[in-house]
């Protein structure tokens, strides 16, 4: 009897582990920032470098912080989804132009459309490090108090907007300042 039970038990155990392994997403590292205040920065605007912006400028508003770059291939896939989301005007969308060249970035926005209320520059990637960015694109959702409530790693799909981002934005808009 044991002759049959042991291989069967082994088979079941290995299958369970492999099945769980299929569902894991090793690229999605849980962000330690959820529930914490947005890291401070003072960064130049992409379209007007002499003007500096900081997270304080968005206080009282629900804002998305989307990390993008013109060299980033998946950002191109994500871009139409962001354009669509921007048209709905449910939340402020702030872009972090990550390790990019100003010309290339401005050109990208001209040709593909600009979903961002404003984009800021992070040419040497320091703001990226402060926000724990490790792969572009990444999208943070910040509430009215300036607390990070959600992070999406990788390109945002239309599906993710419908099922996660929009309900969350609606919920955060309803919260008091």
């Amino acid at each position, binding site marked *: 009897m044991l002759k049959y039970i042991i291989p069967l038990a082994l088979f079941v155990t290995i299958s369970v582990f492999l099945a769980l392994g299929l569902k894991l997403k*090793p*690229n999605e*590292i*849980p*962000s*330690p*920032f959820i529930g914490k205040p947005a890291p401070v920065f003072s960064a130049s605007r992409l379209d007007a470098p002499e003007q500096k912006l900081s997270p304080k400028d968005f206080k009282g508003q629900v804002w998305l912080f989307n990390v993008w770059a013109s060299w980033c291939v998946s950002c191109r896939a994500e871009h139409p989804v962001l354009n669509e989301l921007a048209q709905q005007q449910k939340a402020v969308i702030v872009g972090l132009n990550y*390790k990019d060249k100003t010309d290339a970035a401005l050109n990208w926005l001209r040709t593909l459309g600009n979903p961002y209320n404003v984009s800021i520059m992070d040419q*040497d*990637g*320091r703001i*990226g*490090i*402060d*926000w*724990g960015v*490790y*792969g572009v694109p990444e999208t943070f959702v910040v509430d009215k108090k300036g607390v990070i409530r959600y992070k999406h790693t990788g390109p945002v799909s239309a599906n993710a907007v419908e099922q996660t981002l929009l309900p969350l934005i609606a919920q955060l808009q309803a919260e008091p300042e």
Partner: protein
Amino acid sequence: MKPFLLMLVLILFSGKSAAVDFRQLENPEQQAAYESLTSELRCLVCQNQTIKDSNAELASDLRRQVYEMLQQGKTKEEIVVFMTDRYGDFVLYNPPFKIITGLLWLGPAFFLLIGLATILFIVRRQRSTPANRLSAEQAQKIRKLLETSDSN
């Protein structure tokens, strides 16, 4: 034999391919801290490399960050806290023992225990079954075989 030796030498020296860019700190202690930190922090893009081994842009940015913080006189612990605050425990190759990392730390010991238990079980079972005795006929056959091979 020679090709084998050559291969062995190549394998032995192939592992140390690190240090993509070299940074020199004034103080040897800081230099040691830099070397050890960069080989303890994980490159988050190429997940099975340290930031010392990786050529990824993020790895080089993180090396720069470590270097600058050491120059500012930050301690190793402060830098590790800085990194885990931003990237979580995942950035450490040697994560702290917590509930969430419990399986990671205790898993190997658990599997070792299963292995030991299995061996113990098999050994016990073998002992309890009496060793097979040879019949007189089989013993005779063996003796014959041994004798013929001796005489050769």
